[in-house]
């Protein structure tokens, strides 16, 4: 089958699924009473700063349909991704995530135990990453978390995090897929 036909079929399928879900479920409402719209999900998946990401993400994690939609959007819109890691042992700790487009690694602070430097290297970043920074979405079957990294400088950006922070744990959990936007 030619590529363009396959893509068209996929787009039609996605559109139909979203249309069906919009009609089958009442709009999800966040704590402020404002419903989460498809546009909010698109903005969040693209990493645009105009929306309240924390509130929308909270709503996404409370609703399976929203989570599915968001995952589909991430798969379509993400700049780069790293799938769930195949590990021989689920207990083994991973200290870096690599793909062709990026590398995510952490290093412990020598003075303050419990704090880690999380370094994100993107050798060929896009202009948005230099202005707005990078959003890292960590996705499992049950939860999605999103972390914003500062703008890329010299091909890398970094965060100082607590080792006990759930968002840090998710990033280096082999059972979480990672999407960058």
């Amino acid at each position, binding site marked *: 089958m030619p590529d363009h036909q396959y893509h068209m079929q996929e787009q039609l399928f996605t559109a139909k699924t979203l249309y069906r879900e919009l009609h089958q479920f009442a709009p999800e409402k966040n704590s402020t009473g404002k419903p989460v719209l498809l546009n909010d999900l698109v903005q969040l998946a693209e990493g645009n700063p105009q929306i309240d990401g924390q509130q929308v993400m909270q709503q996404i994690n409370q609703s399976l349909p929203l989570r599915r939609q968001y995952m589909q959007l991430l798969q379509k819109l993400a700049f780069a991704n790293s799938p769930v890691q195949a590990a021989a042992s689920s207990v083994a700790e991973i200290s870096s995530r690599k793909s062709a487009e990026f590398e995510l*690694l952490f*290093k412990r*602070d*020598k*003075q*303050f135990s419990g*704090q880690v*430097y999380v*370094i994100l290297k993107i050798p060929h970043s896009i202009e948005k990453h230099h202005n707005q920074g990078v959003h890292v979405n960590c996705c499992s079957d049950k939860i999605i978390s999103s972390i914003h990294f*500062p*703008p890329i*400088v010299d091909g*890398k950006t*970094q*965060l*100082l*995090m*607590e080792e006990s*922070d759930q968002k840090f744990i998710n990033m280096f959990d082999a059972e979480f897929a990672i999407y960058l936007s």
Partner: protein
Amino acid sequence: MKTHIFIATTQGLVAIQNITPIDDEDISSVVSVNGTSTTANISSSYHNFVKKGVGIIHKMFGACSYRVDISARIDQGNSWQVAMYLAHLAQAKGILGNGEVRQGDRVICATGEVNTTNLQVLAVNEVPVKFELAQSQLTQWTALGAEVQFLLPQANQSEIQPNTYIKLISNLEQAATALPNSIQEQSTSNIKTKKLVSNNSRYIITGVVVLLVLAMFFGLSKFIPSDNSTQQSVAEKNNISTGDTNLKIQLVAQLKQSKTCAQTSSQSLSLSNKSFAELALSQLCELHLQTPQAIGQLLLIAQDAYTVLPLKRNQPGWQIPLPKNRLADRSYFLVTIVNPLSEEKIEKLRLYREAMAKPTMLTEAALVIWLQTQDVEFTVYSHKLVLKE
């Protein structure tokens, strides 16, 4: 006595609590708040202030990245730069306080941006507000018995009334004079010594008279040696000292026995023509230079960086810091000095190094010529740590 450095901001004074070299090329320099993982918004600007080629800190103080802990957030602007430079200088001298001022301490509050090309201090905004917010603390610290200074850019002079705290600066060299000067302290101690001598002069004169009487009694020749013999004995002493120094100097490496440094074996590196044998970094755990007690100071001068570092003497010897996460070999000089150079002279040596377009331009001959101008007894050794065996 510690020196506490504060950044004057429009929200009040912010203490620089601690500076830690990270020296890892992967990790960018970071400014964190109160030792937590919360980072100040000026982190990326500070990273640039450190970064070689753009900033000045890496070039002046050696490490490629640092972590700085401050007492409160600073969100924008560059007026923290003068204070940050002074904090690095104080850290290098080992006198940086943590912001908790005690009696007898020194407090330096500063505001000012740095032109990283010519090291001039540039004017900043809101100086009257910054000073007004700091004033109550300055008064408290003075009452506590601390020596307090508030450094302002010369270009902001017209914005503020002169008072006892304010010191105007136009470049970093002037700013650095706010820190304790070891030469001044030394000269103060000299004055004290002189006073002590004059108080005791009567006893000294009496002693000399007694000695003269004894000399006359037993014969001058036995008591006062001839000029020739004096010179000879000094020369002999020097020869012996130099000979001893060469004999006893040993560079001792602790090498891994397994994958970690839990078990090590000791190895003394061979020395030929004042150059120690090359050593592979991969197996190295610790490195010490063992010298005779007569050696009062050991300087490490990197050949591939502008680092000039006075080392500390521990039980096994002078500890040589090992480079971390190196991507290339490290060549360096070790200079043993009998009478230690003052901080001021070491600073001059750093400036001499930094005046070179590239750090690799420093040769052993050039270093020897510079040291000869300092009127000290010294020996220069060279060594190289290599990445691969």
